Structures are given as C-alpha cells and as structure tokens.
C-alpha cells in the first residue's frame, strides 16, 4: 500500500510539552529473529501525554502497541530514542530511581484470567506492590487493601478469596486495584476491556474514567476498539507497522482522519453497513511482519 505523508501534530506548543507527564521521542524497539535479522517493532515513535490526560493507542495486531507499552515501563529494552516521565529520563534510570519511577507507572493487562496469581488470595496480591515499595505494613497495609477494593467496587471481604471465585469483570477490577495500589500517575491499559462482555466493559470504562477525573490519573489506553477509545480518550495515536502515523485529538481524528490508514480503520468500523450490501471493504493493505 502507499503511505501518504505522516501527520504527527498533536497541537502542542513547547510550553505544553514541558507540562506533559509522559513524553516519548523517537523510540525504537528491536527484536532479534535469530541470526542477524532484526525486526523493528517500534520505529521512531513519538508521543506526549499530559497529567490527567488520556491517550488511546490504536492499530492492528502486531503493529507494536503492546511493545510500546512494555518499553515505556522498561519491561523490555529500547534500542533508541528517549522517554521522559515527569521530568525523569526513563531509559537512563537505574536502581532506586527506576523503582521509584515504576511506582508511578502501572499496567493492567488484557486477560484477567492469566494476570492474577491463582494461588494467592486477592489480599496478598494487592498487598504485594505496597510491600515492595514499602508503602504500608501491618494494620495500615490491611486497611489500604480494603480501601483499594472499595475503590474498584468490591467488598473488603474479597481480600480473603482467590481469583477463581471471581468473574472476568471482577478480576479486571482486582487487576486495576493492584495497579492503583502504588498511587501511580500513569496507568497503561493494554486491551483491558477486550475480553469482557459489553455490559461489564461499560462498568470498567466508567471506572477508569472516574479514576482519571478524581485522581488525575493519566491513561495510556491501548485498544483495537475505536468506539471505546473515542468514549474514553482525549487524544489518539494511530500505529502502523511500528510507526505512529497519526497523533491527534480524538475529535479531530474521528471528524477528519488525515492518514489513509486512519481512514481505513474508521471505514472498517463505519463501513460495516456497506459490507452487508456487498461493497468491498476498505483494505488495510498487506502488513509485512518484518521491518
């Protein structure tokens, strides 16, 4: 497919960039395929996210969304570029400084069945981040766990139970509670509502939106569901083959997508009506798996 000129204009003045909580510049992440072959999973990607803001990251499977999230959290190494978080250089941080940064950045994963340890009680799972970061102990620790459960709409007696006793939506609430335990300023949600029924999805979306408003929590919301992103996010980043092809306000992108791939994504959702009538759906083109 032919790529038109990349539009990367989130409309940020230099002063606004100073205020941003998270700033990623020219990030590159590479994987070795064995031998000397490498794949550039994230390629020269830049983004900004304000404190209390919400940025949706959309794109097809394999485009590098999850890799981007992991690189921001330093769960995997970056091959180049810079990540600034709250004035700190994330990629250069080591030891205690890195641990302090990690306290501020947390993640909720897609599958609430595999992201909780089945052999630990919910209370133990929620206490762990508090213990690791030495935020509370003893009675104060138990009180904090109770507060966390209450914050995500679960009763305090959930602390003594195990993950298998909860439904998918409840488990995702627990995963969110665990992420909130260290009082982060940034929450990365990696397809965290994709595995849920629409009724439960609505509950989790409302919870995330409340948290963002009440606590000024910034959300980096990775999803393939454009409607959910539109509902929850102010800004949106469209990724294609590891690159950001469009970074704009949600309103602008949904009103007037500039990049051909953004248009193809929107058409695929809006054009479902045409599909039924037999019109050819817009093709996203062939995605090469290698960079």
């Amino acid at each position, binding site marked *: 497919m032919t790529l038109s000129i990349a539009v990367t204009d989130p409309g940020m003045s230099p002063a606004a960039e100073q205020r941003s909580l998270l700033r990623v510049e020219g990030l590159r992440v590479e994987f070795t395929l064995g031998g000397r072959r490498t794949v550039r999973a994230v390629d020269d990607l830049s983004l900004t996210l304000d404190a209390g803001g919400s940025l949706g990251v959309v794109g097809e499977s394999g485009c590098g969304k999850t890799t981007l999230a992991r690189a921001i959290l330093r769960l995997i190494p970056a091959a180049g570029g810079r990540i600034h978080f709250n004035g700190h250089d994330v990629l250069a941080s080591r030891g205690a400084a890195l641990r302090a940064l990690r306290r501020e950045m947390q993640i909720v994963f897609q599958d609430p069945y595999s992201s909780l340890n089945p052999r630990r009680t919910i209370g133990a799972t929620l206490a762990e981040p508090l213990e690791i970061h030495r935020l509370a102990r003893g009675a104060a620790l138990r009180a904090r766990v109770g507060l966390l459960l209450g914050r995500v709409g679960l009763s305090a007696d959930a602390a003594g139970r195990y993950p298998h006793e909860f439904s998918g939506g409840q488990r995702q609430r627990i995963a969110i509670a665990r992420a909130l335990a260290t009082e982060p300023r940034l929450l990365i949600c990696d397809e965290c509502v994709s595995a849920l029924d629409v009724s*439960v999805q609505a509950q989790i979306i409302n919870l995330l939106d409340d948290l963002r408003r009440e606590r000024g929590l910034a959300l980096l919301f990775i999803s393939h569901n454009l409607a959910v992103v539109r509902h929850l996010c102010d800004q949106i980043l469209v990724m294609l083959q590891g690159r950001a092809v469009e970074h704009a306000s949600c309103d602008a992108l949904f009103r007037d997508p500039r990049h051909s791939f953004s248009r193809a994504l929107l058409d695929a959702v809006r054009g479902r009506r045409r599909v039924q009538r037999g019109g050819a759906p817009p093709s996203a083109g062939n995605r090469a798996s290698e960079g």
Partner: protein
Amino acid sequence: MPTERANAVPAASCEIAPLLRVEDLCVDVAGEWGTVRVVDEVRFEIGRGECLALVGESGCGKSLTALALMSLLPSAARVAGGRIVLNGIDLLSRPESERRAVRGRRMAMIFQEPATALNPLMTAGAQVAEALAVHCPEAARTRRARREAVLAMLERVRLTDPAACIDRYPHQLSGGQRQRVMIAIALAGGADLLIADEPTTALDVTVEAEILSLLGELRRTAGLALLFITHDLDVVSVVADRVAVIYAGRIVEQGPSDTVFSRPLHPYTSGLVACVPRIDPGDGPTGQAGRRAPLPQIEGVVAQPGARPGGCRFHPRCSLGRDDRQCREEEPGVTRHPGGREARCWKVEP
C-alpha cells in the same frame, strides 16, 4: 412456561419450511450444583440464506445451544428435551450415525480462534483435503484432482494467492487467512447452514470487515444460512436479518435485527444496546449523549446456572422489574408483537 400464543404458528419471516427449526431445546449440565438447565426452551428458525444472530453475555447459553445443534456437547452436558429439525429431518430422534452424516455435510461450524481450531501439524491444504475426503470422496480421487478441488475451495473463500497458502502451516498464516481456511473446511461438505461462534472476535476490525463481507457473499451466491453467535452488537446489526437475545438460558427477545436494536422491547436488550460506546456519538440507536457522559450500565452480573432467581430471570438487574411483585414471582411467557417480534417480559405491552 411459554404461553399458548407461543405454541401457535412460528412467527419467523422465513419460507414455508425453514431450513432449521429449533423447538423448545433444553440442555442440562451436570456440575457442582447438581444438574442444572443451562439452555431452557430455546426456539428459533432459520430460513435458507438467512442469518440469525444469537446474542447475550457470557454464560447465557449461546455456545451450548450451537454445540447442541452440532451434537458436539461436552460429556457433562446433554440435550434434555426439544426438537432440532434440519431440512425436515428431526435430528434428535435419529441415531448418531445419521447425525454424523448431517454434521459437515448439511451443517458445519467455525469457531472464535482459528489458531486453535486448526491442526498445527497439517498444512492448510491438507486440512481442507481431509474435509473433502470425508464428505465427498467421489469428488477427488486422484492427487491432482484433490489439489484442484482444494484450490477451488480456497479461492471460494477469497484467500489471496491460494497456490501459496495451500502448502503453508497454520502458524504461517495470518488470523484472517486462518479463519478463511476454517470456512473452507466447514464448507467443503457443501453445508447449507454455517454456525459461526464469535468468528471475528479475535480479528482486527479491517480483517473482520473482510470476513463479514465473505460470509455475506456466500449467503448471496450459495444460499448459505448462518447462525451467528456474538456479543458484538455492531456486528449483529450488520450481518443478521434477525436476532435472538438470550439471557440466562432463555431467549428473551427475538425479531428483525434493525427493529430489535432501534426499538428494543425487552429491558435486557435496551441495556445491552445502551452500554456499547458509539464510534459516532449521537448516531446510536438510543440517541445516547456523547462521550464523557458515563456509559449506561446493566447492574450486577448474569445469575449462575443453579442460582437463578425465581420469576423473571432478569428481574434483579432490571430497573423496571426489580421491585415489581409480578416480575419477582412469576416467569413471563412469550408474547408476540407486530413486525414478527416476540419478547418474554411482563413490562412489554402485548
């Protein structure tokens, strides 16, 4: 209990003799609560070339209904009553050998995750060839004829470059290509009815659009009928002629998909429609407010089988029925409504 009205003439808007008629299908599962009824008096019809969508939350009995139709229920589950009539043949009264002949040849099924439904040790072509060999051995006796028949199947499902894909293993194919291969296998026996259980849930929106387009094409060109199981209401409003909404094992509303979603009768349907965020706010069938207003929620969760409430099964989560004596104590029957619609709710005026 269904009312007398429900036992009258079937309301569906299909031909005189529907391709598939399901009557009062019940499925029991033996589990930790003892034996519980997970599919309860489910009835629907599908005409030739028609698409019926079965929607509802997880645990409502969608997939078990499909597996019961295919006689593929897991060992803990069994059909406890009802009739499944395909092409005039009452399947449940026939021996397994006869049902086996119907499975694959008259109806076939595809699943949500083609990566796990395909055999990782066989090439795509070999798996299509196997289905052809089982269902129509006379069609391909020589190796060359077999290969050509497989290529024709792969072309029929609009696989780009079938000659290259035929010798590839599932892991060498993309998600969309794998689902096309699954459809080719399912259709190899010449089935009239395809049961698709969340066939596009694992796919990207662009690929999903292509698969939905392919299914639409097969309906038009080959008269294929579809039973489409999904929880994605946007997909339903596009692919389905009619929709059946299932809650806690019972169909609570059924009718043409455009009217069911634009003017839901049952509070559960309204709840499902309202809680889906819209890509273009204001465009939603309920005309809900734009983004930032909290999404309307259906409170609570689906009652577990074995712990289902008396009266209407939805009443604990229903804003209309929660405090209503009749809703709490008596189970509503099916009522018929203009436009080929039916609902199971005390609050819907007949």
